């Protein structure tokens, strides 16, 4: 009310700014049905590019220690939560994720090294995830596709877990990927809430901290010790082997817009499959290929669970399972383009 009066009284630049602010506010309401608080001098934040926003969010996760409870829910009604401890010392990042719903399980990650403790079976699984270290390079490299396929727009401010956050909308520029609405803590840039959005901006999946302690006294050494405490547990080492799709005899007829191959793994029998991983910097797609077995592989189709889509298809003597946090049509393009190279 007061703002409207101010607008009427003043002329020129000031009212223009106020109007611009209102326009944005309307856009935010139209998209989400939620009114975001609008910070007075918010205009300058809107100029951050998608790469700048992402770099900021990524740096926060590399430089800040925190402890919090993360709640993940999907549009299907599934809800689950986990307690997260995150510590970093410049050299390494350590994370402990303790599931609070479902089967008890605690996962430790030191950079790309992962140990999962399954207390019910007294088993500790160890593995490496090279993909995890890729992101900074993806952003800095000149051939990065993120700004080419996503645009960033600041929607306003909101409060999550007691922290004031910038709300940023990452809009996909084509139909091959989902959009994201991201709540980035104002001072640090840490992502405190994330929504994956369909093309009509409906929420497919969201994760948010319900409670968060930023700069909590989490120590790298302490988490390291816990991660190494596998005594009394049966240690199972993941037997995935790095491979190349070309050597396995597979190629893409044409690249899928924005998606670059990032890794390829092979699992020995009994699974006996190849996992070829693609990423556009934000979303990932895995193509699993294994020998076709009529008894096991019956259901061709497309399945959805939250933001994760799955496509299954027979390709002559092979069975393809494509999985990714992308729209179904993207998986279809992958399936159409995948072919034997020998």
């Amino acid at each position, binding site marked *: 009310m007061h703002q409207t009066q101010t607008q009427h009284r003043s002329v020129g630049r000031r009212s223009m700014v106020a109007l611009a602010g209102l326009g944005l506010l309307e856009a935010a309401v139209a998209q989400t049905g939620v009114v975001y608080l609008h910070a007075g001098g918010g205009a300058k934040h809107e100029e951050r590019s998608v790469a700048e926003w992402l770099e900021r969010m990524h740096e926060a996760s590399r430089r800040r220690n925190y402890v919090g409870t993360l709640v993940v829910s999907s549009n299907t009604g599934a809800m689950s939560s986990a307690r*997260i401890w995150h510590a970093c010392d410049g050299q390494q990042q350590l994370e402990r994720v303790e599931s609070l719903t479902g089967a008890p399980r605690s996962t430790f990650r030191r950079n790309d090294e992962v140990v999962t403790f399954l207390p019910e079976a007294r088993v500790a699984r160890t593995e490496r995830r090279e993909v995890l270290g890729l992101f900074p390079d993806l952003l800095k490299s000149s051939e990065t596709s993120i700004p080419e396929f996503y645009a960033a727009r600041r929607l306003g401010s909101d409060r999550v877990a007691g922290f004031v956050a910038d709300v940023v909308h990452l809009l996909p520029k084509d139909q091959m990927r989902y959009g994201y609405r991201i709540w980035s803590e104002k001072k640090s840039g840490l992502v405190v809430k994330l929504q994956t959005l369909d093309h009509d901006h409906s929420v497919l999946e969201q994760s948010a901290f319900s409670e968060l302690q930023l700069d909590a006294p989490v120590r790298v050494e302490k988490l390291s010790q816990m991660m190494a405490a596998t005594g009394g547990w049966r240690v199972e080492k993941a037997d995935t082997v790095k491979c190349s799709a070309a050597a396995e005899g597979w190629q893409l007829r044409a690249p899928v817009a924005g998606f670059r191959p990032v890794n390829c793994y092979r699992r020995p029998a009994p699974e006996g499959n190849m996992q070829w991983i693609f990423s556009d910097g934000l979303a990932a797609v895995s193509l699993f290929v294994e020998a076709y077995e009529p008894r096991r592989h019956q259901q061709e189709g497309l399945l959805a669970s939250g933001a994760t889509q799955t496509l299954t298809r027979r390709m002559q003597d092979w069975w393809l399972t494509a999985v*990714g946090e992308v729209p179904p049509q993207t998986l279809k393009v992958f399936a159409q383009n995948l072919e034997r190279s020998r």
Partner: protein
Amino acid sequence: MEQMQTQELISALADGQLRGDAFARGVELAASDPAARDAWQTYHLIGDVLRSGELAVGSSAPTVFLQRLQRRLQEEQPGMPRAPAVEAAAAPVHEEAANDGSFRWKVVAGFASVAAVAAVVWSLVGGAPDKPVSPELAKAPAGTVLSPGERGVMIRSPQLDELLAAHRQLGGASALQMSSGLVRNATFEGSGR
């Protein structure tokens, strides 16, 4: 009289003051005589209580406590077994260990139950939107623990779930949040049990 000597000997043994023959005699006594064994346990209990401030809080002075304890000890029938309580508490641990062999089954069951939950929320392309597999399943909120019988109806296979998990582990790490794949796995994957 003999009782007192036994207790003194055991007390000294518990305190680690015995050497040579005396030590051998103490150990033999503690091993053979039920009263001596009781005393042995009692002295350790006393030691525990004295060492732990928390346990001592609110109780009477150590001497009063000791007197009461000794009185109770003397009133007690010699040879009355004290161990069973401890053994009973330890028993479930042994059962757990005996279960080790069924680990594989547990993993399979874990995947299977996840599949059952997920089947509720998955729909086949081309078909009616969100056609429920069965009314009971449709009503069950996702994340609910389903009984083994309900696992029979599902579209998804354990193999498919393994692939989903593999995608989240190796490929599902989005640039937005390094741990997104981790958390999804830690939460959704385990939600069946």
